[in-house]
């Protein structure tokens, strides 16, 4: 069969005969999925910003009252995470509304997006969980915490570390590899 013949066969396809669309279900699904995706992300960003902002204020006030200088550092770190999240959010919302990218551009953007999620999870561990677990452990030593308290706190930290590492390893890193593989396929001749 010549290629031109294949094109003729291809052109004979009519949308109406390929599938039937349940339009009511489609509109419901669009509304639900569209709102769900942006709401979920907005909620995560808003809650992390609010919590970190509140912790930053609390630490700052505590530092002013007790002259604990490391609390100033903790407050600044929390504030930095809020600023980082808000800048990322602004970039994300701007990028979400760009539709005229080429496939190369789209893949590049998706890779950059996945990279920023991977960096974010690294930041959560290095700039958030580790310093806080360090401060908390020091505090528990000072107040001579009970075994139950030790088990609870360390258990929670191990769970949080585990979840972040699991998400990173099982979801974001494989997706990044897939996208990079796709970009290589696009570039190769």
């Amino acid at each position: 069969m010549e290629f031109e013949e294949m094109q003729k066969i291809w052109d004979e396809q009519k949308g109406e005969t390929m599938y039937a669309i349940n339009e009511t279900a489609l509109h419901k699904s669009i509304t639900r999925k569209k709102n769900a995706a942006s709401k979920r992300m907005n909620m995560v960003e808003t809650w992390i910003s609010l919590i970190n902002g509140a912790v930053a204020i609390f630490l700052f006030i505590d530092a002013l009252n007790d002259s604990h200088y490391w609390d100033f550092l903790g407050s600044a770190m929390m504030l930095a995470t809020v600023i980082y999240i808000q800048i990322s959010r602004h970039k994300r919302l701007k990028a979400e509304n760009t539709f005229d990218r080429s496939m190369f551009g789209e893949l590049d953007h998706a890779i950059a997006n996945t990279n920023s999620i991977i960096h974010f999870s690294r930041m959560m561990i290095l700039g958030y969980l580790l310093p806080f677990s360090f401060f908390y452990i020091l505090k528990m030593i000072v107040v001579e915490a009970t075994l139950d308290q030790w088990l609870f706190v360390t258990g929670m930290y191990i769970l949080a570390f585990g979840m972040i590492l699991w998400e990173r390893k099982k979801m974001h890193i494989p997706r990044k590899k897939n996208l990079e593989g796709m970009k290589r396929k696009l570039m190769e001749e």
Partner: protein
Amino acid sequence: MKESEQRKIFDEWLDGYRALLFKIIKAYAYSEDDQNDLFQDICIQMFRSIPNFKGSSAVSTWLYRIALNTAIKWSTKEKKHVTGHQEVENMTNVLISNEEAKDERVAWLYKEIKQFNEIDRSLTLLLLDGYSYKEMADMMGISESNIGVKIHRIKKQLVTNSKQYEYGV
């Protein structure tokens, strides 16, 4: 733009270009659940893109670009229905496949297209729908010469494989 206006344009696009969307869905998603999932993803992007469409390109080119980019990204996702991360039973089937209308020659073409990698699949669809190398290069973001090399390989493979196909010449 008002949501009612956006919805009206969406309905017009869906009505006028459904074959274009269905071809992409059939080339990228295998199971009925995946076809539904991808179709909904493409429709969401299509709906969201409406306020950004300024008419500098044909609607079909705009939709092809959106649908292919969505399909490419969708195919890099974790295979939801294979790993069971999505509640398949809760998915609304918005697409109902028309089994009676199946043309065996078209089915053969889809089978061949699915054997290509995801990038070559996009190029094959664009090629079969008559897009020029320049338009393809613009949509894919690579050079026309690279497009030419890929297209030559794709055509050669399709024509060679068609010789083994019993309905072929």
